[in-house]
């Protein structure tokens, strides 16, 4: 055995190890950020830990102390000064515990190093008011335990102890979703815990490199060397499938099943009795899990969920808030056409959409079907077109539900009305408030004349661009910007906001021209453009 193999952790070595941690965390902190959902999903855990570690290492860079205790003390002080965020504060307490454990020591044996890791975790637990399992705390403790176990084996070396700590951390990180509901829901591992794993791996990498530089050692590498690369890559590979089922059989051996399942995934849960066993596992290969389990008995209540989709769904925010039943028990149904407009109305909380509008008037039956499909006994129906109102009113005698037809003449009126809807307000009050808001909005419909005509003192030829203000022909011309300008000029009062719903047939150039025209003519107004996707009306404008 070379002398290096038995080298303890002295000041210079610990310094190198910490610098290695810093560069490894620096390379991976964005990955840590992405995992951040607990306690607040603000995506800054990695940055906070990195800044904390930077501060810990700051003074160390200048130090050539030979004693490990001095370096550890500098790290403890620096991290305390620079601690950011929950994970950063806990990290600083880990350094503090480590520094206390190695006080007065110039160099650490493998056993002393392991003891310091354990004490570091204990200090972190003590510092936190209400320790939560499944976080960096758990990971620190498991890393310490693994280090202690490695130190207790004959022939233990410093690199092996650190490797064991990193391995222990990695295993603990993978288990965090089974300990913390929010992680399970989000389909991620704990960000702070993962950050600690990265830090330990950074140490390990550095020590391994310096060992090989010394040419001293062909260390028995941990089972997954540089484990993080796998862990870091995890999100790209997807989160796998959450697979759950019951096995019905006789004399089922839980331990046997558990062992088999554990080989195929993580977050494994196998519970129950010899006749009925519940299995839960996160796996990349649900088919294999199912085939294997099927050999033990009959499978019931099989459920396989793609956790990547679950994760995406959370990101897209189709949360429960939008789906929760409304306290007022009032549903919303709207008549709309155009892909963008349908999306807008849905996004505002409308429960059912009846496709239709100006040239495609929906039938009373269409509206009735939509109303019946809504899980509320009271429903507000928005026709959003004056030609639909009559048919909408026919619904009233045809259903047992209490239906209110709010006579919105246009899409802008419909949007204004739905915006004013409040889930905790009774139907009648909502109706009144929605009507006030709908009446407050002016609508400018921009389209082409379908034939030569004379109306409201204006002579138009077939194909001319025409503008209708609140259903009345008020402007005509040869292009959209001109007609919109004329129409806006005819409106009285002061306005704050113009929303432009772009139709299917309007080109990018036409939109750009219209937008710049409005902005230059009315510099104080807010202009918002939405993709309405409606037919026949290249532009619908809402002025309020």
């Amino acid at each position, binding site marked *: 055995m070379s002398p290096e193999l038995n080298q303890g952790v002295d000041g210079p070595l610990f310094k190198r190890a910490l610098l290695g941690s810093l560069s490894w965390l620096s390379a991976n902190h964005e990955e840590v950020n992405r995992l951040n959902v607990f306690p607040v999903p603000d995506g800054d855990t990695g940055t906070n830990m990195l800044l904390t570690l930077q501060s810990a290492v700051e003074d160390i860079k200048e130090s050539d102390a030979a004693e490990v205790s001095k370096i550890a003390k500098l790290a403890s002080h620096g991290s*305390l000064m620079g601690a*950011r965020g929950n994970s950063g504060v806990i990290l600083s307490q880990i350094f503090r515990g480590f520094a206390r454990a190695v006080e007065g020591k110039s160099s650490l044996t493998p056993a002393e190093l392991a003891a310091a890791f354990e004490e570091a975790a204990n200090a972190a637990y003590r510092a936190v008011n209400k320790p939560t399992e499944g976080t960096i705390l758990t990971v620190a403790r498991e890393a310490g335990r693994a280090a202690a176990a490695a130190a207790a084996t004959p022939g233990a070396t410093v690199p092996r102890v650190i490797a064991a700590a990193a391995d222990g951390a990695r295993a603990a990180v993978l288990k965090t979703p089974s300990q913390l509901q929010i992680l399970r829901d989000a389909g991620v591992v704990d960000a702070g815990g993962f950050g600690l794993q990265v830090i330990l791996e950074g140490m390990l990498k550095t020590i391994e490199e310096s060992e090989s530089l010394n040419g001293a050692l062909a260390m028995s590498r941990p089972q997954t060397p540089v484990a993080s690369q796998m862990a870091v890559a995890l999100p790209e590979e997807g989160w796998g499938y959450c697979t759950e089922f019951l096995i019905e059989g006789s004399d089922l051996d839980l331990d046997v099943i558990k062992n088999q399942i554990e080989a195929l995934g993580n977050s494994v849960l196998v519970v129950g009795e010899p006749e009925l066993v519940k299995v839960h596992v996160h796996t990349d290969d649900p088919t294999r899990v199912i085939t294997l389990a099927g050999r033990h008995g009959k499978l019931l209540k099989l459920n396989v969920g793609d956790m990547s989709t679950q994760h995406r769904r959370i990101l897209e925010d189709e949360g429960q808030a939008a789906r929760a039943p409304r306290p007022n028990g009032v549903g919303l149904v709207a008549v709309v056409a155009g892909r963008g407009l349908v999306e807008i109305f849905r996004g505002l909380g409308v429960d059912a959409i009846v496709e239709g509008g100006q040239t495609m008037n929906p039938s009373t039956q269409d509206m009735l079907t939509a109303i019946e499909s809504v899980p509320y006994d009271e429903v507000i129906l928005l026709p959003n077109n004056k030609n639909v109102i009559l048919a909408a009113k026919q619904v009233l005698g045809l259903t047992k539900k209490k239906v209110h037809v709010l006579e919105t003449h246009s899409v802008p009126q419909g949007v204004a009305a739905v915006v004013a809807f409040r889930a905790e307000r009774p139907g009648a009050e909502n109706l009144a408030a929605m009507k006030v808001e709908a009446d407050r909005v002016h609508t400018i419909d921009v389209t082409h004349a379908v034939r030569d005509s004379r109306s409201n003192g204006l002579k138009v030829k077939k194909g001319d661009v025409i503008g209708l203000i609140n259903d009345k022909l008020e402007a005509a011309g040869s292009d959209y910007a001109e007609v919109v300008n004329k129409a806006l000029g005819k409106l009285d009062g002061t306005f704050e906001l113009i929303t432009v719903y772009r139709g299917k047939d309007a080109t990018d150039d036409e939109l750009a021209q219209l937008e710049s025209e409005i902005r230059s003519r009315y510099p104080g107004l807010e202009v918002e453009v939405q993709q309405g996707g409606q037919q026949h009306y290249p532009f619908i404008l809402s002025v309020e």
Partner: protein
Amino acid sequence: MKRTFAVVTDSTADLPDDWRERYDIEVVPLKVLFGEETFRDGVDINNREFFERLATSTKLPTTSAPSPGEFAEVYERLAKDYDGCISIHIGAQLSATAESARVGAQSVEGFKVAVIDSETVTMPMAFLCKVAAESASLDQATAAVKQRIPGCRVLALLDTLRYIEMGGRVSRAQAMIGTMLDLKPLLLVKDREIKPVDRVRTRSRAIPRMLEFFESDLPVEYVGVMHAQAPEDADRVAAGLRERHPDLEVPISQIGCVLGTHTGPKALGLVYIKK
């Protein structure tokens, strides 16, 4: 008579301009990070500079709590002149600041620090500091402040949901805005939660709504108005309040850098403590 205890808060209290001197309040700054650049809120960067930078920055800034060491330094300094202090901080559901203060206080021996998790943010904290500053003893201050925490309210109009959404504190669905449409949410911070109150399309519709909501939540002990670079709107809200409640002082303060990171520019706040 000089107080025997100090009053400490953090920069998210968004104290009105002269309160620091008037009530002798020690303010520990949080930090705002634009990329790799770190600024101490109100020390290295003021509100105007912050919002100018926010407008031109391509990546949104992030914020972070003061470190335990920074708190320890402040407490150690105060220990020379005072027997103890009350340290009133932004709600722990929103920031690690109170936790950091608690850890920092542990390292200062012989100096009593009553760390208060205000459960709220911005000017209600300023009112709590005023309550503490006007108390006769640390124990009385602590009791008076704790008693008022459940009554703290922040009614905020955001000009856009973009910033608070990016910051991860509130999602579109939570704000009743599951749409592409640019709605302005009216949010209420109450009982450790951020809840939607209403959503409006234009600012002029929002101000009457804010006043209406306030009137339905009386009686109140303290009320104030906040703004992020929208002084005229703040004046309108304050004028509306003073007209109906001539007995109440209505201080106006600015939304600082840390809160501004989450509200974005042009946010308006009506803040109060219920009786």
